[in-house]
């Protein structure tokens, strides 16, 4: 395999690996709280389970908004930045994340690596990282020029 093909293959594979656990259908927090084994199915058919204690914490923080929160929360990683930064774009999710991190509420909410670690500690199973499509933008830009 030529180096060209190897690189293309690796890039494609990495993006597939990194984004293959995206949920087939997201569920609301209220819906998950009613389940005995709260989980969602991923694109590859795997099961992603949520910890009940974390779901209860989210419910406690959000109160009535629990109906609106779609889980898992996607933290989009933006590789274009100098420091890898995560972005939460969902309105209800930003409310939860900002409360847990103790930062002011904003949509979209930018989450830095230190905060990502804290978020992982508090609601590790409720969040999932996705690689932003911006990661490929530069390649496309280059091809266009």
């Amino acid at each position, binding site marked *: 395999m030529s*180096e*060209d093909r190897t*690189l*293309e293959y*690796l*890039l494609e594979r*990495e*993006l597939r*690996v*990194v984004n*293959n*656990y995206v949920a087939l259908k997201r569920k609301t927090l209220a819906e998950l709280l009613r389940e005995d*084994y709260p*989980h969602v199915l*991923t694109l590859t058919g*795997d*099961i*992603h*389970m*949520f*910890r*009940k204690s974390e779901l209860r914490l989210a419910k406690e923080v959000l109160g009535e908004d629990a109906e609106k929160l779609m889980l898992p929360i996607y933290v989009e*990683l933006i*590789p*274009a930045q100098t420091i*890898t930064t995560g972005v939460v774009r969902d309105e209800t999710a930003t409310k939860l994340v900002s409360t847990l991190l103790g930062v002011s509420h904003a949509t979209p909410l930018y989450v830095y*690596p230190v905060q*990502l*670690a804290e978020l*992982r*500690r508090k609601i*590790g*199973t409720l969040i*999932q*990282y996705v*690689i932003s499509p911006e*990661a*490929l933008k*530069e*390649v496309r830009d*280059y*091809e266009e020029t």
Partner: protein
Amino acid sequence: MLRLARPTKIEFIRLRRRLATARRLHRVLRDRLLILTQELVALYKEVVEHRLRVHDEIVRCEKELIRTLSYVEPSTFEEFSNIRVSSLSVVVGSRIVAGVKLPLLEHEVIEGRYDPSAYPITLKEVSECYEDVIKRIIRLAEAEISLLEVGKEVQKVKRKVNALENLIIPRLRATIKYLRMKFEEREREDKIRRKRIKQVLSRKARI
């Protein structure tokens, strides 16, 4: 530097495209590595903390048990331990972190029906103490397996990142630089050649 069969413009374009792909891949991998490293560090801390707590709690529970057994009959103890918990189950699920499938263990305890006034309160305390130990051991098991899985993945991703960072990208850059210099040199040669031709032609015209 890459070995090139022919230093052509097509090769130059191909190399630049390859460099762009390599850089994209590097960024994606670097992000994944960051997430995985964070997970690894967090899991490591969790494992250490759980291990220490398990040891401490076992010692505490043993002490409590010995103290309780000094004034509770073994038969009462046996009876209580049989009815205290009606079932204990562990749900084995999975969670996925940055493309790595990790186990998720959730324990469920269903308390048995009994009259609390019939047994000394210390017995309940001892059983609760051991319940905490079991909970912690389950979490420890989950964290240890996850640590191993994440560690393996970190190793793999790190190897790829290092190969890109120290080998592929610098080599592509060096080759591109070499080609650019080659083209500039060729251009300069062309310019000089044209000048020389012009000079020769003008000399001939004068003659």
